[in-house]
């Protein structure tokens, strides 16, 4: 029994639709999942497929047009010394940045997880989040200001009378260069700056999941602080670091803007891709270059999953 009038016309339709969806949960699911999957499937997966397809084409040397025939010659081009150089260069930079980021991020993450409480913690979280989400380009640009010959870093170095140190670093053959803003060192600093929040947050999340009484238990059982750190804290924070490394590594692998703005004329993978698909119109080669980070990240992700990084995300 119910109070009040029965359902009106509009309500009747609504009820019938509800009953239909209730009786057929699969139909409901299809309606829900259909549009987004359609978009992602067609737009995203479709283009990934198009990319892969193109990597098996090649460019005709005379006409400069893409020849749509299956061939492995474009992949073979990757093994030319110049191209191999690019790949090696990019991977090395990615590794260096990842390691440095882990080392620098750890104290910050540790402090946030263990010692910061309440408002301080919220503030620190915000302080790490904001740069992460705010404009990438602006942040890269800020380093161009900093690294410029007449910019603040030189000014500080000058004031601290460390010019000799700076010149010494710059004169080291591989990582040095004519100035900070045109050298691997400069690039390294910028990469580190940009990706640092990606490393801080997962480590902090992993450390937060360590119950406080674990460390008390360790001390209770007779371990010194250094041992507790090495045997308890570090291993538990490790998956967080691996999770963060996924981001730092993959983002460095694919980046082409930072090398362009703060770099020498020696190319990175991202730049190679950009250049080849641009005026040269050599999309097959660009595609082949792109497949390299995809494969590398595929392997990296499998290893990371084994190391427990996915639970730390």
């Amino acid at each position, binding site marked *: 029994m119910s109070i009040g009038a029965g359902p009106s016309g509009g309500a009747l339709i609504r009820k019938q639709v509800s009953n239909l969806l209730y009786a057929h949960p699969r139909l409901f699911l299809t309606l829900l999942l259909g549009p987004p*999957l359609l*978009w992602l499937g067609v737009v995203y997966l479709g283009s990934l497929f198009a990319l892969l397809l*193109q990597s098996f084409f090649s460019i005709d040397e005379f006409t400069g047009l893409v020849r749509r025939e299956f061939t492995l010659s474009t992949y073979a081009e990757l093994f030319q010394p110049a191209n191999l150089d690019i790949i090696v260069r990019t991977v090395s930079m990615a590794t260096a940045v990842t390691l440095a980021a882990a080392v620098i991020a750890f104290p910050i993450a540790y402090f946030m997880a263990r010692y910061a409480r309440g408002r301080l913690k919220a503030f620190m979280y915000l*302080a790490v989040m904001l740069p992460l989400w705010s404009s*990438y*380009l602006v942040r890269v640009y800020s380093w161009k200001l900093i690294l410029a010959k007449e910019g*603040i870093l030189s000014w500080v170095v000058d004031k601290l009378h460390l010019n000799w140190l700076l010149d010494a670093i710059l004169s080291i053959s591989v990582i040095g260069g004519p100035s900070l803003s045109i050298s691997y060192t400069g690039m390294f600093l910028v990469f580190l700056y940009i990706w640092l929040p990606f490393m801080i947050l997962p480590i902090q999340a992993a450390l937060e999941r360590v119950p406080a009484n674990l460390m008390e238990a360790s001390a209770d059982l007779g371990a010194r602080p250094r041992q507790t750190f090495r045997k308890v804290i570090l291993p538990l924070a490790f998956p967080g670091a691996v999770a963060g490394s996924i981001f730092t590594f993959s983002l460095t692998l694919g980046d082409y803007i930072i090398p362009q*703005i703060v770099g020498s004329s020696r190319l990175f993978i*991202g730049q190679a891709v950009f250049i080849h698909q641009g005026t040269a119109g050599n*999309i097959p080669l660009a595609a082949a270059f792109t497949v390299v980070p995809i494969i590398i990240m595929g392997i990296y992700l499998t290893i990371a999953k084994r190391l427990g990084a996915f639970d730390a995300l």
Partner: protein
Amino acid sequence: MGLKSAAVGGLLFLHVPLALILLYAFTTEDKSYQFPPPGLTLKWFSVVWSREDIWTALSLSIKVATVSTTIALVLGTLAAAAMFRSRFFGRESISLLIILPIALPGIITGISLRAAFNLADIPFSFWTIVLGHGTFCVVVVYNNVVARFRRTSASLVEASMDLGADGLQTFRYIVLPNIATALLAGGMLAFALSFDEVIVTTFTAGQQTTLPIWMLTELVRPRQRPVTNVVAVFVMVITFLPILGAYYLIRNTESVEGGGK
């Protein structure tokens, strides 16, 4: 304590560069990045105001961001609702697929779209940009809404239906109010992301210029440096505010909603 200073140092490292940009927007020197700045002035703000190319780029960025966010809100919510409510075959793979556009570097998305446009002979246009932006904006909205769904007790929907509300009524009176702030936060984050996006956009824009593309061109071949700085400050503010807003929206709903104990 050593740890504290290291932590503070790290945070400063993150924020000092942004402060510098603000500083440089006022400098009188326009040919280099001289530090300390020789003088301070407001004139660059008025210069930016009168530049046509900046206004065009800005309006394109805003249009793209708005459309992409709207698409993302609809598709992201649909996907989140589907993924949350039931277990079905292939759920894990679909979960991975949805995350993919953000998990893989932007350059892959960019070049893939470019390859697809090339293969299908699609010319660059407003919609090619939106196709790229919409794809990763969906992920952002999806993540926010799914997280909120997870924190909502499933028995709320059951209670509503038990009391006599059919599916659509339950959605309107119970589900929607509970995810409202997540939608808002996701939307704001998506807007900020799209507004700032440059990596995928350079592959999908062709000759068009969004504000980030304008900045990129200026970075590579600088004309009036302080003008770029002013625009940078402006972009910072436009992306800062939605992020802050989204953060406050999400923060106040930490606990599980609807739980009785």
